């Protein structure tokens, strides 16, 4: 394991990506794409997000498998597993409908990597969680409602 404690200043007039490249932290493929998409994270609707990511209205698809609990014991950590069977899947995004920022994460899947992601997201309240898949320029999605419960002694 290796730790970098270097801190970079955004205001130094250099892009983060450039700095990471300088530090040898990012592979060349990622560099081409890596620029944090502020607009995408500000999106409030599924359709808006698809548009910001450069596509048209997403279609519901049965080819996306969303595994997650129907009930989360705590909204701070909600495990999700998304598998896309849509041919040519290029990216998988996870969206939480009622979060202040709807988009939680967007994964780019290069050729050779299986379109299958496990991670954990925060949920502010009970709502739909979407998996949004981009394949050959088109967007597809599936949704699952996850209930967030109050727990423990209550305070």
């Amino acid at each position, binding site marked *: *394991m290796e730790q970098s404690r270097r801190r970079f200043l955004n205001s130094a007039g250099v892009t983060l990506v450039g700095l990471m490249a300088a530090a040898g932290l990012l592979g060349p493929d990622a560099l081409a794409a890596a620029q944090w998409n502020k607009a995408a994270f500000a999106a409030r609707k599924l359709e808006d997000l698809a548009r910001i990511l450069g596509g048209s209205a997403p279609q519901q698809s049965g080819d996306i498998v969303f*595994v*997650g*609990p*129907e*009930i*989360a*014991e*705590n909204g*701070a*950590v*909600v*495990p999700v*597993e998304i598998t896309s069977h849509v041919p040519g899947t290029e990216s998988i995004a996870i969206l939480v409908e009622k979060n202040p920022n709807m988009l939680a994460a967007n994964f780019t899947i290069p050729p050779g990597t299986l379109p299958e992601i496990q991670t*954990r997201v925060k949920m502010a309240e009970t709502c739909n969680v979407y998996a949004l898949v981009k394949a050959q320029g088109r967007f597809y999605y599936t949704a699952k409602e996850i209930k967030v*419960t*109050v*727990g*423990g*002694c*209550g*305070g």
Partner: protein
Amino acid sequence: MIAKRRHAAAWAALALAAGLRLCAAADDHTLQEIQKYRQMLQEGNPAELSELRGEELWTSPRGPNNATLERCDLGLGPGQLKGAYARLPRYFEDAGKVQDAESRLVHCMMTIQGMTREQATRDWYRASSDIEALITYLAAESKGEKIDAPLSHPEEARMYSTGRELFFRRSGPLDFGCSSCHSLEGRRIRLQELPDFIERRSAERFMAQWPAYRVSQGAVWTMERRLIDCFRQMRWPEPDYLSDAIVALEVYLQRQARGAVMEAPGIKR
């Protein structure tokens, strides 16, 4: 007329029974989904990060004496970590008292590394504290070992009986004591199963998983952190960190759980 009324009563009873069955089914489903939630968290317990950090802290020279903790005696001899956590609390001759993992660790930080008590316990209750990391590491070194806190020294016996008394002691505006929630089998608070510490199997199952990463806190909680927070929830004042009341409760709980195979660090809500 009478027949009709009996008929209606029968229908009502039937409806009630059906309603109850429906409730039970809904409850089963809830528990199933919560189980699924917990299972999905088993892989990739963030406590592993604390464990890593703890190992680094354990083996790094620190404190005014610039010494590592590798010669710390947790009860099985200097530097003997394997299974040591599972056999705590115990009486230590050099300290003249019964110590749990945390008080023993602080003892070592003070005597070996030359830290003051304040330095050793700084921010102990906050996420990512040194205590959190070190205790996670020490507990993980007991994975697979049986819980077996000794009860042969008179001080250990005294702490056990004190812990048992405190466990059943009720007071405060909600009349709470540990026993309020932890002496009935198979019950839940909200959706969280409550360990029944009177029942050995239940005590074993729960004690084997502490310290545990708490997803609601984003941190590993040590047993002391867990117990002190129970006092807050009971609306009592908080006992001091490393105080005898907490160690006594641990002696009682570990004794109730003796024989359990350690699985810590666990992961909890």
